[in-house]
């Protein structure tokens, strides 16, 4: 790296300071070795943790990954500044990426492994040059436009080329046989190009009233072009997937940080702050033939995650032509748009189960049942916005800090809800089970009247019949009636437990398990006391503070049903929006002592 600092140039009487950096960067991985050994079949003498105490012979394992990724970058940075108020940074960088080269046997590989990308950053401290009102103490505007080039993962360029993965496979007769599978199935792409990310950022930093009120505002827009991704293709072509280099995926958002100090005296200081962030992901363009992109396949009969061209980056959908998780079919009277039944779920009689306390089951008719195969969007991944508030006081030697953060909007699918509602574990599934929870009367097999039947806001399907309450062997025509009307007409009511048992659980309509991922949490409260300087001096210290911190105190707002924990999401990846079994709430209390000498 070469560097030159503070070169002054004079242009037309104005002095401009120039800094320059020229550098080379080599980046990559190295070969990795790992070695693994464990006792086999348990320990001979319990509690003696030695390899020689293993019951069976130990077979140690060794793994080796060769060095397979390197990139070389040559870059130059020039910083220009004028009178400490106007700054311009220009950069240029050229990368050579090994992950975009092709093995020499792939003679048609284009090896587009070099990528050049520039950037420009401009900032202007306008309070230095313009006469501003007294109350604006500092003001800065900034703008930057940057590009960045990226490669792909090692060995990815040769996907679908052929050649063999060979391995030994267990065979019951011969113990082990060799199998070789060609590297096929993905259409080979000999012309992969670097991905290019272009970002624009605009921002301000304004401090007012002697820095008592500070505002930091940022707008950004990032477009990723030529993204390397795997999209489906027509199986008859010989490859059911294709590796392509396309698209324009856009992320734009706003970040606002506002901080104020309403009270500031010698002994007392109170500050308030808030952070607001908002991001919108969008697929501006995908591919000339493929207009939809699967980001996550169906897991355990839940929804899938898709991105459609022109739409949001990540929506929860039902699966195509799949009975499991298929959306509830909604009543729609084509002749009368004002029919009050329109939009209500459609149900039909599914049959009876159990004896002697027989359950008569009415269940949701799904789109799949109606031959409607298309995916239905049931939610979106992205939050509308994130918001946090913080406040701090300090009075003499005491200090206090509190933080509340939260998110508004966006959805996830709760597998916990799916299984728990089916088993009647959740509070919401108490609905209709007794008189207090709105249970309707029903005559049980002993002839007693019990209040455990559920009311549904649903409409019976065309041609539907249901068993009569007085004699369940007789059918009553209930086509097009609401469930309430059908009950008045004398059908057997459904037990609430049977409703949850047969309509929820594995394979239930996906929208039933979609949660509104909106919550606000009291994230942190800290109380501290700083000991006086005299006391510190006695023990020879400069600073002594004792503090009590409590974290994750509780949800002030939690829109998830049944008190499910928003932190149960199975993964930090925003594109796997589901929970699989909930985790208990946990709080952390910490007592800390800070001592500086």
């Amino acid at each position, binding site marked *: 790296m070469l560097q030159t600092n503070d070169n002054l140039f004079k242009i037309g009487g104005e002095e401009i300071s120039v800094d320059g950096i020229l550098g080379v960067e080599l980046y990559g991985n190295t070969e990795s070795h790992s070695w693994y050994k464990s006792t086999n079949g348990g320990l001979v003498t319990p509690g003696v943790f030695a390899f020689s105490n293993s019951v069976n012979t130990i077979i140690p394992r060794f793994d080796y990954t060769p060095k397979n990724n390197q990139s070389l970058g040559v870059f130059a940075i020039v910083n220009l500044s004028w009178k400490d108020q106007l700054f311009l940074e220009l950069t240029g960088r050229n990368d050579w990426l090994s992950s975009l080269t092709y093995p020499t*046997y792939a003679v048609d590989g284009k090896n587009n492994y070099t990528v050049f990308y520039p950037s420009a950053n401009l900032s202007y401290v306008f309070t230095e040059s313009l006469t501003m009102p007294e109350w604006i103490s500092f003001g800065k505007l900034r703008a930057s436009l940057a590009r960045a080039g990226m490669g792909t993962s090692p060995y990815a360029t040769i996907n679908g080329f052929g050649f063999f993965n060979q391995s030994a496979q267990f065979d019951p007769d011969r113990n082990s046989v060799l199998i*070789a599978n060609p590297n096929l199935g993905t259409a080979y792409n000999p012309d992969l190009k670097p991905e290019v990310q272009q970002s624009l950022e605009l921002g301000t930093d304004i401090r007012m009233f002697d820095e008592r009120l500070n505002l930091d505002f940022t707008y950004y827009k990032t477009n990723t072009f030529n993204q390397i991704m795997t999209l489906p293709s027509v199986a008859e072509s010989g490859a059911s997937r294709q590796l392509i280099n396309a698209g324009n995926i856009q992320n734009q958002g706003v970040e606002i940080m506002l901080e104020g100090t309403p009270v500031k005296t010698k002994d007392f200081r109170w500050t308030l702050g808030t952070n607001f962030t908002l991001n919108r992901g969008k697929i501006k363009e995908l591919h000339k033939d493929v207009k939809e992109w699967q980001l996550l396949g169906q897991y355990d009969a839940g929804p899938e995650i898709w991105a459609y061209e022109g739409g949001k980056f990540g929506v929860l959908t039902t699966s195509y032509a799949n009975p499991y998780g298929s959306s509830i079919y909604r009543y729609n009277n084509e002749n009368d748009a004002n029919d009050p039944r329109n939009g209500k779920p459609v149900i039909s009689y599914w049959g009876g189960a159990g004896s002697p306390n027989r359950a008569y089951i009415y269940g949701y008719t799904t789109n799949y049942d109606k031959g409607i195969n298309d995916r239905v969007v049931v939610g979106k991944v992205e939050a509308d916005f994130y918001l946090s508030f913080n406040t701090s006081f300090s009075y003499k030697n005491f200090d206090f800090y509190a933080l509340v953060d939260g998110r508004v909007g966006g959805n996830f699918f709760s597998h916990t809800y799916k299984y728990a509602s089916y088993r009647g574990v959740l509070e919401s599934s108490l609905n209709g089970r007794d008189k207090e929870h709105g249970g309707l009367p029903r005559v049980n097999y002993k002839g007693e009247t019990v209040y455990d039947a559920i009311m549904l806001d649903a409409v019976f399907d065309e041609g539907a019949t249901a068993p009569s309450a007085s004699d369940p062997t007789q059918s009553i025509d209930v086509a097009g009636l609401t469930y309430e009307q059908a009950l008045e007409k004398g059908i057997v009511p459904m037990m609430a437990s049977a409703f949850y048992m047969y309509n929820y659980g594995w394979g239930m309509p996906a929208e039933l398990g979609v949660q509104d991922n909106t919550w606000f949490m009291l994230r942190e409260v800290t109380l501290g006391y700083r000991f006086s300087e005299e006391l510190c001096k006695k023990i020879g210290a400069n600073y002594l503070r004792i503090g009590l911190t409590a974290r994750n105190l509780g949800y002030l707002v939690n829109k998830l049903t049944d008190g499910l924990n928003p932190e149960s999401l199975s993964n930090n990846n925003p594109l796997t929006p589901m929970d699989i079994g909930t985790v208990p709430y946990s709080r952390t209390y910490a007592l800390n002592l800070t001592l500086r000498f």
Partner: protein
Amino acid sequence: MKKYKVILMGVLALSTLSGCLKEYQELNTNPELLGETDPRFVFTGATENFNNSSRNHLMAKYSGVMQMMQYLVNYQGAQEGVYVNPQSTNRPNPFTPYYSDYYAQIGLRLRYLREKVILVMLRQKDFKICQL
């Protein structure tokens, strides 16, 4: 003088790069992918688990296709709705994975074996090629 130094460094940097492509190609070549193999292993690979390659295949076959063909009957007796369901508004949809299995796996691999492995091998005469 400083300017010349910069240019000199640039020239040096570029000259080290010219030898780079070959090196990078080598780096990005997976040593575990074999260019050649015995066709017998390819055949075994393509046809292993030809029938029941997953639990899904097995389950769907026994609970769907084989019952529809009246090849077997549910242990609780013939069930209404499996053979014919007069209430249903859509056609029966038997599980037939063979089409996608052929195009995505078995057929694809066998075709590759025939066209790319056997035809270019020296031991061609050892393998009888039938028209697929």
